[in-house]
């Protein structure tokens, strides 16, 4: 039996704040009839404005949603309202799903099975045409040339900045032109990094932060220019550090990796704790980061999804739950980004195992060795207490880690702790931790 999600977990699935509000409006028992829940399905009929009620159901193991309402929001307010009602204990257990629910579930599972077959076939087909056609080869070679030229341009530009001095660089518009050139050079990853440089300008320490960012961009140019030769020269050791680092560098530059390539690579099956998520809007595109850690493997993972503002984001990973799943990691050293290759089921589990503060820093250091451009890594800290000036340090027996300036005073975390140590999941960043989630004394997940 799946553990009921709490209210915060359900609301975290909503695509936006107005959906959260609308869902609360349809979460009262009076609006629903014919509700029921089994191990993995939840359903009900909701009175709408028309004569026929809307039928909503949720496959709790994924989760996946379906509703007969015409809303373009996903999940819609009815699916969320139904989840809220369930979360509040308002849905009775049932032995079997209602007929219309069963049909949908069967249809979904058929399609899922076919999709797996198709992916396998596609993988084989791709392997077969590994030596791709001449047109593909020409396009790829062209892209290599453009990127090489673009990065050479960037390297020169960086050199010019340091020669002339960055004292006059506290201007937000100075990178626009450069970022555009990098887009044209088909290096969207670097272009994104350059276009976000303005964020380092707000603090008093901006010269140091800007120099650090310039240095890492320069390092990326150097990696792209020199690593291929070293990888080729390493011969038998081609699978070693330089090869992995080159893949990581190409990923940061923005060479595309297809989902099929990812699925064909390394997969890890584990019970993954969903630690938390962060949505960021950039150029009318929302990027959703969901952080995971594997119970047995101890691996960290990041599942990234995108949607234009106002459109539905992937809501299938619910913060505070634990899922038995296979994750396929993107290639390269210090692998972090992953896609869900196969989901088995949600498993009830309490707070995830954590590590001490110094161990978490060791892990970050190891990850930085594989990916020098890393600026974010999920950690689970065990036995830490908010402390220090302004309660902005998570302190353990071996010392403390400061929070990111944007975290403010984490009152919810402080209140949950009461001055006693607890387990906290957080996102490590070079400027400090961003708290994601904690667990209270009863083991209930608290989203921070």
């Amino acid at each position, binding site marked *: 039996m799946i553990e009921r999600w709490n209210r915060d977990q359900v609301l975290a699935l909503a695509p936006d704040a107005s959906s959260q509000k609308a869902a609360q409006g349809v*979460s009262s028992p009076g609006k629903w009839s014919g509700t029921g829940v089994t191990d993995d399905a939840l359903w009900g009929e909701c009175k709408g404005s028309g004569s026929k009620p809307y039928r909503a159901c949720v496959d709790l193991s994924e989760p996946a949603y379906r509703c007969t309402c015409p809303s373009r929001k996903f999940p819609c307010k009815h699916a969320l309202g139904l989840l809220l009602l369930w979360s509040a204990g308002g849905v009775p257990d049932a032995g079997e799903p209602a007929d219309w629910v069963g049909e949908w579930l069967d249809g979904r599972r058929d399609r899922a099975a076919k999709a797996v077959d198709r992916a396998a076939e596609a993988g084989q087909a791709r392997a077969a045409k590994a030596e791709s056609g001449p047109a593909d080869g020409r396009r790829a070679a062209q892209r290599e040339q453009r990127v090489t030229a673009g990065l050479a341009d960037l390297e020169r530009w960086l050199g010019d900045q340091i020669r002339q001095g*960055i*004292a006059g660089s506290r201007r937000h518009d100075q990178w626009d032109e450069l970022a555009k050139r990098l887009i044209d050079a088909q290096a969207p990853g670097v272009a994104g990094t350059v276009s976000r440089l303005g964020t380092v300008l707000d603090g008093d320490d901006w010269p140091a932060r800007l120099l650090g960012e310039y*240095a890492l961009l320069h390092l990326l140019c150097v990696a792209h220019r020199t690593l291929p030769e070293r990888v080729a020269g390493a011969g038998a050791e081609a699978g070693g550090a330089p090869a992995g680092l080159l893949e990581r560098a190409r990923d940061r530059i923005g060479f595309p990796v297809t989902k099929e390539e990812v699925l064909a690579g390394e997969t890890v099956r584990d019970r993954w704790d969903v630690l938390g998520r962060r949505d960021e809007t950039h150029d009318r595109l929302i990027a959703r980061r969901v952080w995971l850690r594997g119970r047995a493997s101890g691996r960290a993972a990041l599942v990234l999804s995108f949607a234009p503002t106002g459109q539905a984001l992937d809501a299938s990973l619910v913060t505070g739950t634990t899922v038995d799943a296979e994750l396929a990691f993107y290639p390269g050293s210090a692998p972090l980004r992953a896609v869900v290759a196969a989901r088995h089921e949600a498993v009830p589990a309490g707070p995830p195992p954590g590590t001490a503060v110094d161990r978490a820093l060791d892990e970050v250091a190891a990850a930085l060795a594989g990916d020098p451009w890393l600026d974010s890594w999920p950690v689970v800290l065990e036995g830490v207490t908010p*402390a220090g000036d302004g309660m902005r340090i998570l302190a353990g027996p*071996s010392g403390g880690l400061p929070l990111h300036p944007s975290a403010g005073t984490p*009152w919810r975390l402080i209140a949950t702790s009461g*001055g006693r140590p607890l387990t906290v999941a957080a996102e490590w960043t070079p400027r400090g931790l961003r708290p994601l989630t904690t667990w209270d004394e009863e083991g209930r997940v*608290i989203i921070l």
Partner: protein
Amino acid sequence: MSGTAEWEDLVSTALVGTDRRPLPGQAEPETEVLARAAVQTLRIRAGRRPVPVAEPPAAAAPEEQSVVSRAAADRLARILGGEQPRMLDEWLRAAAGRGYRLAPHLLPELLDRAAKDRSIRPHLGVLAGHRGRWLAGLNPAWAFLLEEVTAAAVTGFGDGEEVWQLGTPGDRRAYLAALRASDPAGARELLAATWEKEAPDDREAFLKVLADGLSLADEPFLEAALDDRRVEIRGEAAYLLSRLPESRFGLRMAERVAKFLPAGDGKIQATAPTECDTAMRRDGVRAKAQYGMGERGWWLQQIVARTPLGVWSGLYGRPPHEIIRMPVVDWRDEVVAGWIRAAMVQGDREWARELFLLKPAADLLAVLPREERETVATEFVRRHGGRNARYGRLSDYLTGVAAPWGPGLAQAVLEAILDISNSTQSWYIGDLIKLAGERVDPGLHAMAERFSLEPPVQEVAALLRFRNDMLKELQ
């Protein structure tokens, strides 16, 4: 050179530029600066060690109260999130009344609310538990919590003497009220002993406690309180004294009534005072008129409002129901408003009943005993509640009828809601729906659901069901 010094040196070089500050012995100093800066940046990121932390604050004391259930905490989060926001007060009241404490993660949001909304602070005093007080010690914006009543006031005091000497203002008030209920004279003497040293806010709050169990024995203490520095305290003392007709205060007010409101020709020959003298001010009459009122009328109204109602029958030789119908020369509105205020403050049921027939006002209903109040209100709703309402908004009158409303009143109100919703006046039905949802006994939700399928009635039913479930979770 140490790593930190090298990094600072690199930043200085980058700021002015290698054209002006070249690195010695380097053909491409800018490349060298970028390469070294990359090494230093990664050294700093990867080499970070845990920072030493000063002694963390002492942990919060273990709790004695039991925490609200998960379902109850989730419902509170829903209310805070905007679903049925008006139910917040009832949730907090019910949970505090049963001596629960809140789940800790909800405390910051509620403390923030209470910082802006004083009315929920007393509930929070109980619900916050030790954790809430520990948090209030960390955040000056929440320090108000330390003044509030604690759970001890709900679960019973151990050593009363200690509470009175050392407790929070809220606890001291609760202790005084408990003592007043069992030993009125003892409570007054306890208060009198420290009266001069109490803060003005506390004096005002403590004085209100004496309303319960009031007797002529309190008169000397209250008469002395009329000389207090604070106007609110003088006013409160005056209202308490107006309930004691034999008091010196009562006699002074009777003299004023005889002077300004003599009877003649079967009429009340009213003249308003031309000045608000020191003696009147001492007896709680405020000189400054309320906005939009003439000063003289305001003074006259206050004299009427502060006069023991028993004075009138003695002066005119008539029962209340005749007095209120006597013609008043010139100042009728002020006199009637004064009587209404007096009936409310003095809790005089007979006057309240008669005045309501003359001029229905919510405050008058509040004076009547529960059963009679329901009967009067039901009667009023049946006669005036529908679309032909003579008195404007029904909800304005029913605010004086405290929860819970029984089946008779509930049905009358639902009928009125149905009737209004089918008329052209349906625009003002919202307030009535909300009030009914908040006041009707939530146990009647099934009755309301069956009453009619019309949306306004179903809306009331949904509110009742929400409250019914809410109170069940707090059992």
